[in-house]
């Protein structure tokens, strides 16, 4: 047992060192690495819903977009009038000083973590009572409705978008912006991973699995399923909001339907990544997101213009042929590595039965 832990320790410290060194090793790809961290966070939090709880949601994009708008709004609103900022290229008239910028983004991220979690808690009772595909469609509608409504609200820029505060010009180091956002997202990734790993070792995960496998029976066993479902969703919303806030700062421009409530891209990506890696596993979403990101960045430029066709075909192929994902496939192939013991006698008996 001790040996296994030592192995884990080497693995984790190796990954953390790699993560810390990455922006220096691949300094041209800092933005891509930041994207990767955010994608992994989104996939892992989606996995809590879709993989562990069995509630396949398209609605986590709601919290992502909400976090994005909240961070930017707080960052601007703390120092300048928000309405004037969004009305006419406010980033030229009002300039954040270095201190103001970092204060703003700090408070903004805090708000963008808490408010989505509160929203998730508030709508959770109504929405999480839906089962199966009704839940999926409802959350899909919720995400798109949020985008359409945000596109009609004047104070956050309506349809013409919202420019987030530019990185303070007083910092001379041109690499600073990339590094700042990379380390921010990396910290978020570590935080999410530690949290999810903690959940995987707790009773909470078993309860979520019980809900996935048979909700009525879980309820009959005396588990207050609704309480746990809402808690699970709030955890996801917390991290999705943070991820959205960081992405808003990185992209520098928020559009209601193409960047923030981007159900057509981000909203599908997170589902796809979790399924590709294998839902219901700790490492599945991480591997899935990494593979997907490499695939996307490698192929997107080669097949310019056809990327959405490729994405659509990829979705169909993955969903139909690999619904268990990479981890599921590995598990089938090497069950002993996953701690599953196969009773040879039993297996032979089953084969004979067939």
């Amino acid at each position, binding site marked *: 047992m001790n040996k296994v832990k030592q192995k884990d320790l080497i693995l984790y410290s190796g990954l953390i060192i790699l993560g810390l060194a990455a922006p220096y090793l691949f300094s041209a790809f800092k933005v891509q690495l930041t994207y990767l961290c955010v994608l992994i966070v989104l996939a892992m939090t989606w996995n809590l819903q879709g993989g562990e709880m069995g509630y396949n949601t398209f609605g986590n994009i709601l919290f992502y977009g909400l976090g994005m708008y909240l961070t930017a709004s707080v960052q601007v609103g703390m120092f300048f009038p928000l309405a004037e900022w969004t009305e006419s290229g406010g980033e030229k008239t009002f300039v954040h000083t270095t201190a103001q910028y970092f204060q703003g983004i700090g408070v903004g991220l805090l708000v963008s973590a808490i408010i989505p979690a509160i929203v998730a808690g508030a709508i959770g009772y109504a929405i999480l009572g839906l089962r199966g595909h009704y839940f999926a469609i409802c959350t899909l509608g919720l995400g798109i*409705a949020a985008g359409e409504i945000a596109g009609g609200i004047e104070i956050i820029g309506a349809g013409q978008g919202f420019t987030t505060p530019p990185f303070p010009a007083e910092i001379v180091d041109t690499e600073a912006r990339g590094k700042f956002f990379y380390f921010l997202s990396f910290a978020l990734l570590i935080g999410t991973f530690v949290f999810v790993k903690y959940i995987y070792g707790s009773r909470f995960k078993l309860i979520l699995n019980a809900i996935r496998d048979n909700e009525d029976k879980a309820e009959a066993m005396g588990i207050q399923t609704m309480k746990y479902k809402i808690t699970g969703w709030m955890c996801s919303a917390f991290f999705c909001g943070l991820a959205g806030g960081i992405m808003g700062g990185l992209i520098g421009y928020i559009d209601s339907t193409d960047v923030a409530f981007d159900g057509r891209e981000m909203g599908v990506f997170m589902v796809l990544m979790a399924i590709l890696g294998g839902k219901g596993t700790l490492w599945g979403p991480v591997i899935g997101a990494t593979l997907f990101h490499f695939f996307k960045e490698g192929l997107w430029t080669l097949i310019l213009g056809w990327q959405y066709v490729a994405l659509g075909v990829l979705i169909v192929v993955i969903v*139909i042929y690999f619904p268990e994902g990479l981890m599921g496939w590995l598990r089938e192939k090497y069950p002993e590595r996953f701690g599953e013991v196969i009773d040879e006698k039993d297996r032979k008996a089953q084969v004979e039965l067939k």
Partner: protein
Amino acid sequence: MDFLIFKAPMLMVQASLDGILLGILFALIAYGMALQWGVMNIINIAQGDLVILGGYIAYTMYLVGIHPAWGVIVSPIIMYFVGVLLYKLVINKVVDRDLFISILATFGIAIVFQQLMNFIFGADVVVAQSEYGTTMLFDNSVTLPNSKIFSAFISVLYAVALVIYMKKSRLGRAIRATAQNARAAKILGVDTEKVYAATFGINAALCGIAGALISITLTLHPYVGLPYTVRSFMIVIVAGLGNLPAVALSGMGLGLFEEFADYILGTEFRIGAVFMLLVFILVYRRFKLSKKREYLK
């Protein structure tokens, strides 16, 4: 918020007529949705994109110089084969599986369709001119495009024809038998695979008709498919599977809701209102059902 509509009765008449005529069109799409949901137990997110594709077929005819109204005959025929092809390629692998798999797989199809239509027809908003003119009612205070009346009439015509076909023909009976119990139908010699393919084809054909009508009454754009999917999904939930009068009624109700939302909230919130209505209907349904469950306890 703009409550002008409640002060002017003529605006209300206008909105109501528009809504009802539009709603009949939505009901036609929803009928296809109910058909495939009931028979094959799949939810097709690409439904709206099939509609838009059907619309583009009529629009292409318009560009070539044929009157787009002929699209209501040509478009379903082409779309039937598109539907059967789609069934053979993808859909036959998601029948009998988890509904979420069908949702995701058809989501993938929807993305492919959107992008291909974007390549072929461009990203502009287009409309096929039918040049049917408008009818003026109540001293010219209510204007009604004749194309809308035409589209409602054609929708009703096709819906009635389909109902009769489903009742009387051999294939229609096989489809209904499969919907009731696929296994029993198989035992009694129904080739369910063929029935599924035909069902999906008929659904696509219905989408084709609706699309051709939309190309002359409303506008077409490669990325506006999803609202049509959601509308038809909503109508089916409210009306239930296989209840045709209810489908027609709730379709009209949805049309009315949209027109009034358009006037009161403003056009920019129209699609948002549709999606919010979906959320509200689902949540309402959930509370109603949970009450029933508690009662059973």
